[in-house]
């Protein structure tokens, strides 16, 4: 998976590049609009991360050029501007997502993964599993080590999200948005409490913990072998 980052702020670009590389993506960084467009038109990227305000041509112009060249590479915009018309403009031009600075890296990573997954065919899983945890999506049943676990509807949805994106750190805002449809940053610890309750049912009576907290980033479901 190769990503192109077009960002004129040297530090931002460098940190993004480092973070995404360490998350397992190949990244290429351009620091001005013209270079960015040149690279974007080569067509060998799976995702473009564009800043709106750039020296040379701006992010919107790059997006237009890319779409005109017939490329449907997903595009994620980063911007310090948060005017509604900006957002609408970007989405009209064919942007796939939009993040306003300041944003959390975990949020960016989650969105990047969502966008990359969008291309792949939506999985028609009937059953999700990790280690000895199984989730039967059709019968809405969860079990661990053969033991049936009673979950509320939201707990089930939360576990399904964690299982579908196992190994990924999911920020709280993404969980709130995906499970409860709460699309705003809230400073409550609702998600913490919800995760704690899910842990109580999934992990507490088992030696191998599956739900892990990544401090300051979010939560991840994975099997760790220490």
């Amino acid at each position: 998976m190769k990503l192109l980052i077009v960002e004129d702020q040297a530090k931002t670009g460098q940190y993004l590049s480092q973070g995404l590389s360490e998350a397992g993506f190949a990244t290429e960084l351009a620091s001005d609009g013209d270079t960015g467009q040149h690279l974007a038109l080569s067509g060998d990227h799976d995702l473009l991360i564009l800043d709106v305000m750039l020296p040379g041509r701006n992010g919107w112009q790059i997006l237009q050029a890319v779409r005109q060249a017939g490329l449907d590479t997903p595009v994620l915009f980063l911007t310090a501007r948060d005017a509604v018309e900006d957002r609408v403009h970007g989405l009209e031009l064919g942007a796939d997502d939009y993040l306003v600075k300041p944003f959390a890296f975990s949020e960016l990573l989650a969105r990047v993964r969502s966008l990359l997954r969008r291309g792949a065919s939506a999985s028609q899983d009937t059953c999700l599993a990790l280690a000895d945890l199984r989730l039967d999506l059709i019968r809405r049943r969860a079990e661990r080590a053969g033991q049936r676990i009673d979950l509320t509807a939201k707990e089930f949805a939360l576990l399904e999200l964690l299982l579908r994106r196992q190994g990924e750190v999911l920020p709280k805002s993404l969980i709130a948005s995906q499970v409860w449809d709460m699309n705003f940053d809230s400073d409550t610890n609702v998600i913490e409490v919800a995760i704690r309750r899910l842990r109580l049912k999934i992990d507490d009576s088992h030696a191998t913990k599956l739900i892990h907290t990544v401090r300051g980033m979010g939560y991840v479901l994975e099997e760790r072998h220490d």
Partner: protein
Amino acid sequence: MRRLSLGSRLALLFAACTAAVSLGAGLLFSRASEQHFVELDQQLLNGRLSLMSSLLAGVATQEQLVMRLPALLNELSHQSDLALRVRGADGATWFASRGELPQAPAPTGLATLHSNGVDYRSLSAPLIDGQRASPQLTLFLDITHHQHFLQGMQRLIWLTVGLSALATALLGAWAVRRGLKPLRQMGKVAASVTAGSLTTRLPAAEMPEELAELAGTVNAMLQRLDDAFQRLSAFSADIAHELRTPLSNLLTHTQVTLTRPRSLEEYREALHGNLEELQWMAQLVNDMLYLAKADHGLLMPSRQALDLATEVDALLEYYAPLAEDAQVRLLREGQAHTEGDRHMLRRALSNLLDNALRFTPADGEIRVSLEPGLRIVVANTGPAIAPQLLERLFDRFYRADPARQEGSSEHAGLGLAITRSIVQAHGGKIRAECEDGWTRFVIELPA
């Protein structure tokens, strides 16, 4: 082009009015006196003419007339401004008491004539009534002195018109200047208002009635400006203050960490500490940008039909685990529908629930009531809030507890301000009430 000043305009208007009125009055008077003179003349001429007619009764030829002349002349000599002409039925002049008499325009009746610098009033009549072939008498009255009087009067009228117009213009200008003094004062006050002196007010009580309302309006505007300015100043100061604490924590923490080599675990811990501060700051900045957008009228809610019961239930479900932990009951009652922005209204209500959960003691209750029409009431049991603080709850950075606890998870105090902005963006109002052990946040939305 510069427009005429209000004072000059009024002065000119006054002058024009006075001129019109005095001109009208003058013309009326002049007409009336002229009419009066005509009547006097007619009376006099009528009397004289009948006298002359009786003197000349029976005269049919010029010879007969000559016989009567002495009596006629004697009669005429009594009045020097009177002249007589007698003409035969064929139009030939038989007698004229004075030369250069003008032609009478009509065979009978009164006329005003002018000849050789003399004005006459003339009255003609046939000597024998109702007979066409009768000698014709015409009496002429010299009315030059009347005309002089009338002309003099007209001059006087014009003079009066001119002088009174001038006088009213000057007096009017003076009066307007005096009358508009409060306006100039208002202007002076307005000119002296700067960001630093928004407390200046106009003395509305001392203003004349017409200006008192305007002064009141201006004062109210100054009050609003002052309030907004105070809020803005306080807001900037608050931002700086809010950011100062986490920034200082970050600086200190980072510098202390770097003073000597540490274990990997210690570095990790330091970064985590910083991350928490940074996330708190990012959240603060995002909330402030949201509020700034609202202030600039850029918060444009979409309008979609919403079943508020569904929305509230979703929110209560979201908060259920938290409420259960805090041993607080969450209830929703009633139904309501509205058109609004789902995400924004969810955010607004979420802030209220968040706030309610913070202040509801264990075994308390949070109740969301929906009333069609349309009201949303979020009520919670809990300690009473002093009435003077209820309005301030929606102020930015306002916290019931002034000393913010150190620690990043503490909220910044922007939640209720954001809720109010969202409600206002939907054209609604929000207020807080406190009674009978319940704190209520009442949102009123246009139905």
